[in-house]
């Protein structure tokens, strides 16, 4: 049994407008590409927690649209859509990204894959068009969780 790489995604912020996520998978590049671009696969992993994916249509060609909807356990619908700008299997796609909850937050997302010795590295980048869009990401709109211990949380973010 190979150990898994759970929890190994690296999240970085290369500029004011960008979010960069990298993660490796022990699988060949062609399979990883399919898993991120074919609706029958995307359905299986798009929702991070207990949400249900109710719509997943992907027209994987330049100018083609995708639309993915997931519904959270408490019934909130999250709808994502966009249009493919570049499609280069099995290494790269670039597409516009629009979350219906933030209609002014236009962004472009790109996925790049590279394979070395059977390990495929995913580089995912989300680039907002302007600061107004990116500000959605950094505004905290949930309930403030209680914390008493300054050391705990600073240690966490300083990992």
């Amino acid at each position, binding site marked *: 049994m190979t150990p*898994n*790489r*759970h*929890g*190994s*995604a690296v*999240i*970085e*912020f290369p500029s*004011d407008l960008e979010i960069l*996520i990298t*993660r490796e*998978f*022990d*699988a060949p590049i062609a*399979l*990883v590409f399919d*898993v*991120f671009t074919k609706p029958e*696969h995307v359905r*299986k*992993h*798009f*929702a*991070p*927690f207990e949400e249900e994916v109710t719509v997943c249509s992907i027209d994987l060609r330049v100018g083609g649209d995708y639309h993915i909807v997931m519904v959270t356990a408490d019934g909130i619908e999250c709808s994502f859509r966009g249009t493919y700008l570049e499609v280069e299997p099995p290494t790269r796609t670039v597409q516009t990204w629009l979350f219906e909850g933030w209609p002014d937050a236009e962004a472009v997302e790109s996925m790049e894959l590279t394979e070395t010795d059977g390990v495929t590295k*995913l580089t995912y980048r989300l680039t907002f068009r302007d*600061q107004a869009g*990116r*500000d959605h*990401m*950094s*505004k*905290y*709109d*949930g309930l*403030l*969780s209680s*914390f008493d211990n*300054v*050391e705990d*949380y*600073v*240690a*966490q*973010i*300083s990992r």
Partner: protein
Amino acid sequence: MAPTPVTSDVFNAIAAADRREVLDTLLAGEKAVGAIVNDLSMSQPQVSKHLRVLSEAGLVRCRVDGRRRLYRLEPAQLRPFHDWLAKYEQAWNARLDRVEDYLKELQQRGEQQ
């Protein structure tokens, strides 16, 4: 309590790993720039640059003691960002962990055929 908006300054200030190290070393308490340089494998100009960014974002506060400039943490500014980042990181890790498990499942199925 109303949700606290986070300025992008805080967001950017904390996004760099080096600056998180600077914050980390200030956990132990107030420190002079020289002491921070000693703690970390960074040059004095680097540390000063990071302190300036952190200071502008309100994450550290500086006071002058004779010829020394002493810095201390202002952790209250960090909380909303930390909560957001933790949630975001958790969601992405959960999704990509799911991709990994699913890839394993597909590969095992492929081998069995």
